């Protein structure tokens, strides 16, 4: 079925634009960049139609990549229903965001570079999704990390952007360390990286080892999918262009961790402790990130923390054994969070770069289309009944309820907060009086059309694509029954959050300030994101930098290595200084030395003969 064409198309786009894009017109760059991704999308559709029901995985083997002793790793691609969902999300949303970026990046420098990186990202993401073994998946995993770094630091003349890029890369590296260790253990236990091989043997493996592998894999996922304790890079990653935030840091790359854990479900179902850890980390992240989102004023920061929080939900789904619910939320989240970011991008674009919501307000009448699509997205993320977020979030919360009621209640409370902070941002942006100075203008159609399509998907996508039903052949059955009670409570929490936001930011705009001054300590804590960055800085970064400076640089490098080399040099110089005196330039003194040496040799030999040593 030529699966390899799917990732190769964007790679070709990357190579053409990356090598020759500088000389191309914008139209030509667009043609290659968007054309390659749209073609990949069409090829995905054709492949999936051609494969029919896909009840079993379809695998293609291209070549043996690594052959060394017992290790044999093939470059294999595989498609099953889980991969199909991911392929459609990545190429579908990716195409829309590429088209949107034409309008958004129209006035930016480095146009071709942007699209080249974006295409490279698509290549690696599709490799990650299509991989039939852990090592090829890891190639994609690292590749998307690289593209994330490149695109966060796209405005490389801004220190804040390059710092954010470094932070994302380094924090991800910490997670990847766990992932690598997990892969070592997998190879040691199963002797292979192939999913089919590993999962067939996993049930027979010792539980302790599976738990360890599961937790290490999860640690890798925590880095990529921005979970506690490694979530700190994602909010900073918003320094990149907004289409990047939408594509990489909301819709696709950050969900790779969820995909990977769902892919490894066999390991997790046999390691209950690892699953518990995932669920706890997920719910903690969802809750903490939501509280931080309550007090942010940068519109992209709000959505960034919202992404962290929603990823936490997906982890709760996976951790409760409802893998399909996690993937369901992954898909609907891709719809509405991409839309939220792109809508926020449209707002920022219309205000010529303003991101502070305190400088917005009253934009409802000025950019009505953006207003409309943002309303759709906000309703979807708030879990408004029958929007896409409603279905997927309920699927997760039902599974959580089945697993442990307290997980459910924290989830419901977080859902209420989610609705509140999203609508807070919505009301601050579109309602009240305009507080800024720029003249807002509606975005061009090339940006609006993808927004409208995503808005449609956000509203009805959850109903159209019943992912849990579709994924039934892939994952074990979820026992959680459809229950009306918990569903109604969750929806009510969302509606309550919306109402509260309306009350505080439209009806009585004075309330937030009085709360902020009333609970000053709490507000400062939340506003400063619990000082997590500062704590990490003090606990990890500073000691590491200080230790490197004092021990490694001053102590080891400058002290020991330089000291040894310089010491040898100084001794040689000292000895040479003494010997130098013999080099008088006077021929007769040299001759004397030679004669002296000759006499010494003769005396030496005579002594040896006398002592009987030499015959």
């Amino acid at each position, binding site marked *: 079925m030529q699966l390899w064409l799917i990732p190769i198309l964007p790679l070709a786009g990357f190579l053409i634009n990356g090598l020759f894009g500088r000389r191309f017109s914008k139209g030509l760059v667009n043609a290659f960049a968007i054309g390659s991704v749209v073609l990949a999308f069409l090829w995905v559709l054709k492949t999936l139609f051609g494969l029919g029901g896909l009840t079993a995985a379809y695998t293609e083997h291209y070549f043996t990549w690594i052959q060394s002793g017992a290790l044999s790793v093939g470059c294999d691609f595989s498609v099953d229903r889980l991969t199909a969902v991911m392929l459609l999300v990545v190429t579908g949303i990716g195409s829309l965001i590429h088209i949107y970026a034409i309008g958004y990046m129209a006035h930016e420098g480095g146009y071709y570079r942007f699209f080249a990186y974006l295409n490279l990202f698509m290549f690696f993401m599709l490799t990650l999704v299509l991989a039939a073994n852990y090592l090829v998946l890891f190639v994609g995993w690292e590749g998307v990390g690289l593209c994330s770094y490149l695109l966060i630091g796209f405005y490389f003349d801004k220190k804040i952007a390059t710092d954010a890029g470094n932070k994302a890369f380094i924090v991800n590296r910490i997670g990847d360390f766990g992932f690598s260790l997990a892969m070592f253990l997998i190879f040691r236990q199963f002797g292979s990286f192939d999913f089919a091989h590993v999962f067939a043997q996993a049930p027979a493996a010792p539980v302790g080892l599976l738990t360890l592998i599961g937790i290490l894999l999860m640690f890798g996922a925590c880095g990529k999918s921005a979970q506690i304790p490694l979530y700190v890079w994602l909010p900073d990653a918003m320094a990149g262009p907004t289409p990047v935030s939408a594509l990489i840091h909301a819709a696709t790359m950050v969900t790779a961790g969820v995909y990977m854990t769902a892919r490894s479900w066999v390991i997790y179902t046999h390691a209950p402790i690892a699953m518990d850890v995932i669920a706890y980390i997920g719910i903690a992240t969802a809750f903490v990130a939501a509280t931080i989102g309550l007090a942010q004023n940068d519109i992209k920061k709000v959505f960034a923390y919202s992404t962290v929080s929603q990823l936490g939900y997906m982890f709760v789904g996976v951790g409760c054994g409802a893998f399909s619910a996690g993937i369901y939320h992954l898909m609907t989240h891709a719809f509405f969070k991409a839309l939220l970011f792109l809508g926020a991008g449209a707002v920022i674009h219309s205000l010529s770069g303003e991101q502070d919501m305190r400088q917005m307000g009253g934009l409802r009448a000025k950019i009505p289309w953006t207003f409309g699509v943002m309303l759709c997205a906000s309703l979807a993320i708030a879990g408004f009944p029958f929007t896409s977020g409603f279905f997927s979030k309920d699927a997760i919360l039902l599974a959580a309820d089945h697993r442990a009621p307290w997980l459910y209640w924290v989830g419901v409370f977080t859902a209420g907060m989610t609705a509140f902070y999203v609508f807070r941002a919505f009301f601050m942006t579109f309602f009240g009086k305009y507080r800024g100075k720029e003249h807002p203008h509606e975005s061009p159609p090339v940006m609006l059309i993808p927004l409208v399509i995503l808005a449609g998907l956000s509203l009805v996508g959850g109903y159209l694509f019943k992912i849990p039903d579709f994924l039934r052949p892939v994952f074990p059955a979820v026992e959680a029954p459809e229950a009306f009670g918990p569903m109604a409570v969750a929806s009510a929490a969302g509606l309550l959050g919306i109402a509260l936001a309306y009350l505080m930011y439209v009806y009585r705009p004075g309330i937030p300030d009085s709360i902020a001054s009333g609970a000053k300590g709490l507000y400062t804590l939340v506003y400063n994101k619990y000082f997590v960055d500062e704590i990490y800085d003090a606990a990890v970064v500073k000691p590491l930098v200080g230790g490197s400076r004092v021990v490694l640089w001053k102590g080891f490098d400058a002290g020991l290595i330089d000291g040894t080399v310089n010491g040898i040099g100084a001794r040689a110089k000292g000895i040479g200084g003494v010997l130098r005196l013999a*080099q*008088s*330039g*006077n*021929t*007769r003194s040299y*001759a*004397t030395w030679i*004669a002296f040496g000759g006499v010494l040799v003769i005396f030496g030999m005579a002594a040896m003969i006398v002592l009987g040593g030499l015959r």
Partner: protein
Amino acid sequence: MMGHVPLSWFLMLSAVLFSLGVAGFIFRRNIITMFMSIELILNAVNLTFITFAYQRQQVAGHLLAFFVMVVAAAEAAVGLAIILTVFKNRETLNIDDLDSMKN
């Protein structure tokens, strides 16, 4: 005829010539004189070679003596050329004045 003269005399003569050469090389300041002292040293060594070759009835000593002669001839050609050039440039043959290698 050689048979009447003891071997040690030849060696003694050689040692005397050698020492004279070394002393001349070290204590004389004129380059030409030093040059001649080198020739004296070489010939003293040659005499030793020949002496031992005669005593042991072996041709290797003769061979080496010829080698030394050839090298000495070449050395004389090059050496005299150098001395000429030095004299042209410095207008002196005092070895103690030719110490520009120092520092």
